[in-house]
Each structure stands twice: as structure tokens, then as C-alpha cells.
């Protein structure tokens, strides 16, 4: 399952964040997973609004795998990614924890940025094992296979 959101304003951040929350709830992510995904979404989407005047978020949700969020903007770019990823650095008034903080909430995190062209951040969060197993149990409870057809020839 996949889709995308255009993020221009603070309201867009909220609206898209709510959608992401709804999707992860439906897919059976744990509360902690959901809250951490929502928090990282808020951080990274806000960065696009504040630093680049907006951008686009693409999401990909795969069963038994996880959620990937790609944040892409055509803003000024991040001149020094290493510096931006270190705790405490910020070009605006925020605490500067948005980027490094989101990374800590991710299972996989990539930043590609070219000054003057824009920034692309990929955030990936696995669906945790016990959730996947719970889902398998659900399948087992249902009658999935028909064994009777093989017995007709006796």
C-alpha cells in the first residue's frame, strides 16, 4: 500500500500525520511503534515546512515488513549533514533534535541533500516481530485450506 501527501502548511503536517496514524493503527503496529512513527513524521514534515517552504511525503506500507516514509523537498538543502545530525545543532530556534531524534526512532534512516536543490530523507520503521506473529496466529485460526478434495479418489 502506498500514497503521498503534499505538505505546505502546519495544518498539512497535522492532517497527513493523522492519516499516517490511522494507517499504522489499521496495520496492527503497536502503540509504541505508532507513537514513534507519528513523532518522527511530525519532526521531519515540520522541517520541510520551516526550512524548505514545504515538500512531499511518500509512504509505503508493506505487510510483515514495515513503513517507509520519504520526505522530499526542493528547499535550500542542508549544507553540513553531519553537523545537522548531531544533537543540539539547529539553524532555526528549535532544539535541533528533529533530525537526530527521528533517526533514533528509525530502523533505517538516510539523508541525501544538495545545497540549492533540496533534501530527501528516507525513514523506515520495521513492524515488530511479535506483531507479525500475532497476525500469523490469526490466519491459523481461520480455515484456510481444503483437504477434502484430495480424498475423492480414495
Amino acid at each position, binding site marked *: 500500500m502506498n500514497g503521498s501527501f503534499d505538505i505546505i502548511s502546519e495544518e498539512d503536517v497535522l492532517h497527513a500525520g493523522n492519516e499516517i496514524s490511522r494507517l499504522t493503527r489499521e496495520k496492527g503496529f503497536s502503540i*509504541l511503534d505508532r507513537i514513534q512513527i507519528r513523532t518522527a513524521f511530525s519532526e521531519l514534515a515540520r522541517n520541510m515546512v520551516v526550512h524548505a517552504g514545504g515538500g512531499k511525503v511518500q509512504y509505503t506500507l508493506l505487510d510483515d515488513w514495515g513503513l517507509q516514509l520519504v520526505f522530499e523537498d526542493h528547499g535550500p538543502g542542508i549544507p553540513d549533514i553531519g553537523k545537522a545530525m548531531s544533537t543540539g545543532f539547529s539553524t532555526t530556534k528549535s532544539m535541533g533534535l528533529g533530525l537526530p531524534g527521528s533517526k533514533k526512532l528509525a530502523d533505517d534512516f538516510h539523508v541525501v541533500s544538495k545545497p540549492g536543490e533540496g533534501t530527501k530523507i528516507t525513514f523506515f520503521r520495521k513492524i515488530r*516481530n*511479535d506483531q507479525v*506473529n500475532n497476525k*500469523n*496466529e490469526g490466519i*491459523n485460526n481461520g480455515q484456510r*485450506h481444503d483437504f477434502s478434495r*484430495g480424498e475423492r479418489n480414495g
Partner: protein
Amino acid sequence: MSDKTNEKNKLETLEKRVQELEKENAGLKATLEQEAQEHEKVSMDLAIGLSEAFVVLQKISQGDFSVRASEDVENELLARLGVVINRTNDALSAAKAQTQNMIKELATPVIRVWDEVLVLPLIGTLDSQRAQHVMETLLERITKDGARIVILDITGVPYVDSLVAANIAQTMEAVKLVGAEGMLTGIRAQVAQTLVKMGVKITGVETKSNLAEGLKEAFRRLGVKAIQEKQPGD
């Protein structure tokens, strides 16, 4: 003369019959060849299907439950084998998950030792996954029970690595954030060394030598007095 004609006719009939038989024979031969080919194909399919099934079974026996046998194959026998293997796989992986959950629950026994006082004695080595589970379980109990004081007793933890040490520090901070007071008891020599050497700061958390001292401190903070009315043996 009629005899001759008769003979000729007979010969012609026989020749015709031979031709027919030859044709029939050719047909039978073709059928046989086709059947032989089909048999070969079926046994090839079976051989390939079975070896695939063996690979899947071998992986399952090694504890890899992510594999699936193919159920959507032409050969009915193989299809059924696939279905049975996948069913077994599902059942095994569910059982494993259940056991792991049970172990996880047993490994984090949060005990309410007094009104509003929780104790979590940790035993054995901690990896970061278990440390994460400890944090989640403990915080949930604090909010559910409205606990005031939480004692994390790590007497049974012989050593920690830097990741787990950081995790313990994070747990104590999170305890504060949800609104309880954390206490750490039973820090072993090696654990203390790791904490200091790795520069892990456990700020604003009282540490006591053992669980009994921790409990006394908890009682003191709650204003609870324990009075010994009789001497043992009186």
C-alpha cells in the same frame, strides 16, 4: 475362376487388415511414447518439488520460519505437501512466538511490594531488546497502578554493556517523566565500572546497596514506619 477371384478378395481383405493393424500399432506407439514422456515429466516434477520441499523443511528445522512451500503447483500431491508444510510452519512459528512472549513476561516480574511501591528484580544478562521490554513493562505498570516509587534491583545482573547501561539510564529518566521516583539497587562492581567508564549518567536517581535498603528508603519517603514488636525467639 471364382476360386481365384475369391483368393484375391481374401488377400485384399488381409492386406487391408494389416494396414489397419499397422495404423493402430502406430497410434498405440504414439500413445505409449506420449505416456512415457508424461511419466517422465511427472517424476521430474515430483523430484524437483520434493527437493524444494526438503529445502523448506530443512530451513524450518533450523528455526527459519520465514520460508514458505509452494502450494500453487500443478501436481496435486505436491500442492497438498506444500499446504501441510506451511500449516506446520505457521503452527511452529506461533508456538515459538508464544514461548518467547511467556519468557519475556516471566523475565520482567514487576511486583507491588507496598501500596504505590513497585519492585522489578532483574536476573541474568540483559540485551538491549530485553532492556527495552523492561522499560515498556515498568512504565505501563507505573501509570496503571499510579505508583510513586519504583525500585529497579539489578543484583542479579552480573554485567552490562554500554548499550544496556544507557538503556537503564533511559528507563530511570522515563520513570521520572511519567511521574514516579526511580531507585536503583544492587549495582555490582563490574556494572558500576561500566557505568562510570562509559560515561553513562544516571541523574537524579537514588542508588542503594541492596533491595532491603531501597525498601527502607521507600518507606521513609512514604512516611511508613515498620515496628518490630517482638525479638525473634521471644
